[in-house]
Every structure is written in structure tokens, then in C-alpha cells.
């Protein structure tokens, strides 16, 4: 009992209050995130429908706005079937491993000046470390389902995510060189003169394509290529565990868009610091920019045919890797030459 006494003393009013504040902050980020995920699925169906001269969801609520909620209810009330030959613990943990990294990464994203849950110095490293975890969910799902289509889908994703993480990391490194810091708020503040997407425009394009591949979205949606693999790594999943995969994928899309906005598009900063632009508060700018990148995700899905697997690998390793390495050296050289360090 004596051993525990100092720990029991931790439970006092001050600590409980600060814990309450932290929980409130966490809820303040995750609850809007989940709403955004729900309405991203609605936006996706509407955008793709209008690009294909259809109307998309119209029946549930006004302009189909109730559709995401109806879908979520349907998924949650279905039976959760676990395949007999699966390894059950891994099978149940896998969807969580997809969802959790996509949510915890939001801890370091600055929505406005000072509007961030945890303003850590190594924010960029934290983001790369958490995004590296997403691949486990997919591999575990594919392996534990004990079925051939999920397995093949998982093997493809593993290779794809690992390949594109390399070029993503190198792109991020050149941004860190330009900003001189790994703190995300500092990176945004370094873009007050010019957004990094202008001096590093090729890197912006490489990063955009890499995040499409990293989140397994079209045209890089090979892991779930319906024509070949049924539904890819989550073929065997049903009900709420399937919903978690779905949520994880869309939360990851929003997260990757937010990272792009912070690294290249000046985060909460308005495009120009003049009258009509700087009346709008920073987090609204952030939201508009994220919505723009998300629109590019949907646009690409409605426009491009799927890549073949060898073309995907060629693009990642033979085009992006050498080019990002070259750009990293170029950035370092330019920074040194013009004395910008």
C-alpha cells in the first residue's frame, strides 16, 4: 500500500482538471473529424456523380445529406462475421490499427496560430512515424483473414506504402531544410513570405501523387482493385469492423491533405496579407485549403484509369526516388549559396 501512496496522491483536483481539458481538446479534434469523414463520403459521391452527369445520392434528407448517417447506421447494425479459419485476435485488432494512427496524428496539426493539441518540436517526425503504422493494419487484415484475395491485396499494399513512404519522406526533408524546423507551426510561419509550393513546385506535385499512393486511392487503388481482388484486404470484413476500415481510409485522406496544406500551402495563412483576405480567420483558410486538396483526390478518382502494378513500382522507385534525392541536394545547395540557412 505504501508503494501506491504517491501514485494515489496524483488524483487531485488540479490533475483531474488538466486531464479534463486534454480530453476536451481531443474530443474537439476527433468529433469534427468524424463528421468530416462522413461528409467526405457524401462529397465524393456527389462530385463523381456530377463528373459523370449523374445526380448521386438524393433520397435521404435534403440533397442526400442524410445518406452518410444512414450508411453508418446500416453498417453498425449488421452482423459482424468472423471467418472460421481466421486468427481472431489479429483479425479484430487490424481495423483498429488502420483507424488509430489516422486519428492520433491530428495531435500535432496546427489549425491556426496556437490552435494545436500538442505543439511538439518534432512534429514532422511524429507524422511520419504515425503514418508508417497504417501499413500494419492492412497487412494484419490480409494475413489474418486466411483467404486469398485479402492476402494478395495486403501484399500489394505493403509494397506500395513502403515504396511511396520513401519519396514522401525525402520530399518532407526538403521542406524541413527550407523551413529550418521540424515544428509544424514553425514551418507554417516560415511560409509567411511565400508558400513552399511556389519555390518547390515539383516537390508539391510529387507529394500530391505520393499521398494518393499512400492512402491507396485511385489511380493507385491496386490493393482493392475490384476487378481482380474482390475488395482487396477487407474482403472478409463486415459490419463495424468494415466501417472502421472505411473511416480509417477517409480519415487518412483528410490527414494527408492537412499535411500537404501545412507543408506546402501555408497552413492557416491567407494567400496574401491584404484587406479582404486577412479578415477571414486562419482556421477557415486551413479548412478551405484542405477541402481543395480533397477535391483533387476525388477529381483524380473520377478522371484517371488505374495504374498497372509494375508501372506503380516504376514510378515510385525509378522516377520519384532519384528526383526527390536530386531536389533535396539542390535545395541544400541553394540554401547554402543564397545564405538562407
Amino acid at each position, binding site marked *: 500500500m505504501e508503494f501506491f501512496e504517491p501514485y494515489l496522491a496524483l488524483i487531485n483536483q488540479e490533475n483531474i482538471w488538466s486531464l479534463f481539458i486534454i480530453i476536451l481538446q481531443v474530443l474537439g479534434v476527433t468529433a469534427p473529424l468524424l463528421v468530416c469523414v462522413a461528409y467526405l463520403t457524401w462529397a465524393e459521391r456527389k462530385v463523381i456523380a456530377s463528373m459523370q452527369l449523374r445526380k448521386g445520392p438524393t433520397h435521404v434528407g435534403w440533397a442526400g445529406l442524410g445518406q452518410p448517417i444512414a450508411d453508418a447506421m446500416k453498417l453498425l447494425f449488421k452482423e459482424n462475421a468472423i471467418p472460421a479459419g481466421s486468427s481472431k485476435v489479429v483479425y479484430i485488432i487490424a481495423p483498429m490499427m488502420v483507424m488509430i494512427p489516422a486519428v492520433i496524428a491530428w495531435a500535432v496539426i496546427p489549425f491556426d496560430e496556437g490552435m494545436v493539441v500538442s505543439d511538439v*518540436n*518534432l512534429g514532422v*517526425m511524429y507524422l*511520419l512515424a504515425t503514418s*508508417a503504422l497504417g501499413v*500494419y493494419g492492412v497487412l494484419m487484415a490480409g494475413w489474418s483473414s486466411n483467404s486469398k484475395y485479402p492476402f494478395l491485396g495486403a501484399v500489394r499494399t505493403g509494397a506500395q506504402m513502403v515504396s511511396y513512404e520513401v519519396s514522401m519522406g525525402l520530399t518532407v526533408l526538403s521542406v524541413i531544410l527550407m523551413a529550418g524546423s521540424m515544428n509544424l507551426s514553425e514551418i507554417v510561419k516560415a511560409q509567411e513570405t511565400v508558400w513552399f509550393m511556389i519555390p518547390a513546385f515539383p516537390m508539391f506535385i510529387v507529394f500530391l501523387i505520393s499521398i494518393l499512393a499512400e492512402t491507396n486511392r485511385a489511380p493507385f487503388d491496386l490493393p482493392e482493385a475490384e476487378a481482380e481482388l474482390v475488395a482487396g484486404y477487407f474482403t472478409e470484413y463486415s459490419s463495424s469492423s468494415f466501417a472502421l476500415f472505411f473511416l480509417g481510409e477517409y480519415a487518412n485522406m483528410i490527414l494527408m491533405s492537412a499535411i500537404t496544406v501545412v507543408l506546402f500551402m501555408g497552413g492557416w495563412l491567407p494567400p496574401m496579407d491584404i484587406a479582404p483576405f486577412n479578415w477571414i480567420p486562419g482556421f477557415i483558410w486551413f479548412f478551405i485549403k484542405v477541402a481543395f486538396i480533397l477535391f483533387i483526390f476525388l477529381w483524380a478518382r473520377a478522371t484517371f484509369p488505374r495504374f498497372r502494378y509494375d*508501372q506503380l513500382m516504376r514510378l515510385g522507385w525509378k522516377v520519384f526516388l532519384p528526383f526527390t534525392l536530386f531536389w533535396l541536394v539542390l535545395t541544400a545547395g541553394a540554401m547554402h549559396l543564397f545564405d538562407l540557412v
Partner: protein
Amino acid sequence: MIADLLFYMFASVLCIGALGVVLSRNPMYSVLFLVLSFFNAAGLFILIGAEFLGLLLMMVYVGAIAVMFLFVLMTVDMTTEDDDGKKSPFFITLVLITGGVLLGEIILAIMGGVASNTRLAEFVPVASETQNIVALGQVLFTNYIYPFISVSMVLLVGMVGAIVLTHRKREGVMKQDISEQISRTRDESIEIVTPALGKGIS
């Protein structure tokens, strides 16, 4: 105090994970336990103020190396493995020797006190002054530049070795040249003919 609690949590889960690695029969579970151990080791690193090392551990070991293990295990056929409890005495002696050496090192480190070692103590004043990553960079690229370069050379040799060992000339491989494909024009790829009635294309 909270740091103490977190230490006990990370350390105990780390030990459970490490035991899981060696005790699981299924190699797949071993790798997943290994990932759990990496995680908790990263937590311990962050707890002592080495955030950069902790996050690096997660990026490199969890994000790359363990994924490679998992990948190899998934693609290698494991049904042929005969695990009937036979253990060769050679391996048991090998295991005992390596285990003994590692245990001896730990005991020596605890008895001798690692912190009194002058080479390690060099890090301490630098790390407390500036940011973690700045301190590391300064130490790596000034005091330890030659070891750093030689380590990168070893890694390069490893990479070249892996490519040389696995690369082989294969016959009958169809290669595509993308620039050649997309620079094809309409004129050189299709020909429009108007076949005469009743004759067709000869």
C-alpha cells in the same frame, strides 16, 4: 511521478512483448510482438528526453524493418516447417553463449556505471542546451564524422551486395519503354484502308 508510472507501463509491456517474440510458435505473432516491443522501447526513449531517437526507432524499425519481416513471412510458405520439438545441441550452446555474453554486458554496465564513461558523457552537455536533433547533428557531423561516414559505407556495401546477389539475367523478359510508347504518333501506329467490295484486305 507520472513519468514513473509511464516507465513501469512501457517497461512491463516491453518485457511481455519480448517474451512473446521468443515464445510464440507462429512466426507471424512473433513479428507482431516485436512491433509491440519496438513501440514501448520508443516510449522509453521519449520518456528520457530523446524524442528524436524514439521517433526514429518507430520510423525505421516499426515502419520499415518489421514491415519487411512481415512481408517475407507472408510470402514464404511456412506449412513445411517441422516443429516437433527436436533441438540440436549446437544451437543450444550457441544460444547459451550469446545470451551469457549479453547478460554479462548488462551486469557489467550496471556494476561499472555507464554514466561515468567519458565518451558517453560528451553527449550530455550538448543535448541539454539545444534541441535534441540539433545536438545530435552537431555531434554526428563534427566529432564523429569519420565513424559516421564509415557506417554509411558499410550500409552502401550491404545494399550493393544485396542487389548483386539477387540480380540475375533472365531470358525472354518483355520490357516496356514508356517514353517510346507515349511518343508514338497516329501515323506510325494505325493505317486506314478502304477495302474494295467483295475483296477485303489481302
